[in-house]
């Protein structure tokens, strides 16, 4: 896998310059139920389609950003600042 990822700061680079940070999830508020928290710890959407996910430009500017990636075709729709 050597596709190009467009870092919002540095531009298009080989994906090997980046570190995948996982599917974007939303952290429950402190007074949520234990079930909410457990879902947040361990469950993921894992969609076959466009997924919002975190990436870090580890070998570049080291900033965190979002990518909207189609998990079936592996095409990146968009990258954006959080």
């Amino acid at each position: 896998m050597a596709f190009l990822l467009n870092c919002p700061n540095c531009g298009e680079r080989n994906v090997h310059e980046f570190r995948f940070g996982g599917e974007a999830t939303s952290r429950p508020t402190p007074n949520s139920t234990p079930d909410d928290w457990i879902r947040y710890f361990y469950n993921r959407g894992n969609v076959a389609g466009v997924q919002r996910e975190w990436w870090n430009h580890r070998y570049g500017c080291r900033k965190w950003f979002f990518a909207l990636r189609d998990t079936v075709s592996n095409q990146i729709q968009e990258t954006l600042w959080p």
Partner: protein
Amino acid sequence: MSITAQNQAQFNPIRRSAMHHKHLLLGALMVERDGWQQPAHFGSAEAEAKHLREALGICDISPRTKFVIKGDKAEQLVSRVFPTALIPDVGEIIVEAHAGGIHGANAALCRLAQDEIICVATTGLATWLADGLKDDSGQCVHSLDISSALAGVSIAGPQASHLLAMISELNTSDAAFPNLCCAQSKFADIHGTLLRIDLGNLPNYQLYFGREFGEYMWDALVEAAEVCGGAPVGFEAMDQLQG
């Protein structure tokens, strides 16, 4: 906090770059300059100057001062210290000659991101920069002397971009990376910051990377330089280029 003259005399602390041992192995003539042990040459400054003009030379520039300025107000802080300089856009470099009013001292302002500027300067400017970049305003800006954290190598000569093409996928052609550009990318499998600051007509790339990788990166660069017809050079040969 700085070293008092008395302390210095008593202990005589010497500064060595991460590649010090490698220079010794290559038979370099080590000389103290700006408080650092540096290689003057590796046998013949004339031969090294020739390499630089015709192919390429790699030179240890770790002693240079490097400051990072981060935060929303990074631009403003830098402008305070360099009132006459333009502020570069992301990916650009502005060079201030005679920085700090010192003849021959220069500082390169490199914009790595919207909120991150690094200032790479002559070794002797460290104190002046540290004083100037102090900010107690409580605003969102922070400066840090990272000179010790980064080792640096200058890759200069007509073949310089060919060497870079062997160790990095970053496009360093003249079209994509002209003079006074900067970028962070992967070089020989590690993180590096690349600044292009040509010496007159001679292409010159300064590559900065984690000091812990000093020996590893030096080996990788020497190997690649040989393939391109280049060799390690000392500061005497580099000085000749600066005129």
